[in-house]
């Protein structure tokens, strides 16, 4: 049986890997996957605290976060496909329309 601190540590490390991936990768698809990873780390925290305080609300909110993550990934992938049609690339550093 895991205690709260172990869960917090794992979820913090998952979140850090997500942030690192967003900062260092060029591929827009992998950046989207890292966002999903960060949302999952947040979910892990929700569930850990739901168990810590014995409240079902945390688990209900984790379910809601899962739904929002699904909506986010649908729009994000549509953006990636539209970008690929328009600019023929998914590398984020090739997209510099707003660069001064």
């Amino acid at each position, binding site marked *: 049986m895991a205690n709260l601190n172990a869960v917090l540590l794992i979820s913090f490390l998952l979140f850090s890997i997500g942030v690192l991936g967003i900062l260092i990768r060029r591929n827009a698809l992998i950046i989207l996957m890292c966002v999903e990873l960060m949302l999952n780390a947040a979910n892990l925290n929700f569930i850990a605290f739901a168990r810590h305080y*014995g409240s079902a609300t945390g688990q209900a909110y984790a379910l809601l976060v899962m739904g929002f993550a699904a909506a986010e990934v649908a729009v994000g992938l549509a953006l990636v496909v539209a970008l690929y049609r328009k600019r023929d690339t998914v590398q984020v550093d090739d997209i510099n329309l707003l660069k001064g």
Partner: protein
Amino acid sequence: MEHLLQVIGQNMFAIFGALALAGAAFMVISRSAVHSVLGFLFAMLCVAGCFLSLEAEFLGMAQILVYAGGIVVLFLFVVMLVELSKYKEKGLFQLQSRYAIGVVAIGAIGFLAMFRKAFFGAPSSEALVLRPDLAKGLDVAQQNAQAISRSLFADNLLPFEILSIVLLVALVGALVLAKKERV
């Protein structure tokens, strides 16, 4: 043998957590996008295992259904559409990745130092409970999905309804964005 199984059973969360971290790290560093998606899938399945070992049975199953069944397949389809071999990736990592790694490492160390007491303090956990009027006729510890549904539909109905509208907007928005010719 029995002792080993007992130890594994007691440390299920730590095992799944470490595997999830490994899958996530593989996702970030792997060269091919398909390998990244497979690392992502592995990490999500391990996070589902973490949910199960935290006594959130319904959420663990929902995680497997939503991520392994839906989102990963969607990612694989887009990789198939987009990742053509005709164009080469100029480089795997951004130019500023050295600074980014430094910033994330400093942030992580600072966070750990600030919260070291919270992370490594005394453990505690309590059994799941509901408000007495909601928990009527329900064994909350045994019936996880029913407990979540009562909490969701009694106390958190407004966020649930907002989520339905957000999903509808995302559906229409994704269609409009991915359509070929604009009206």
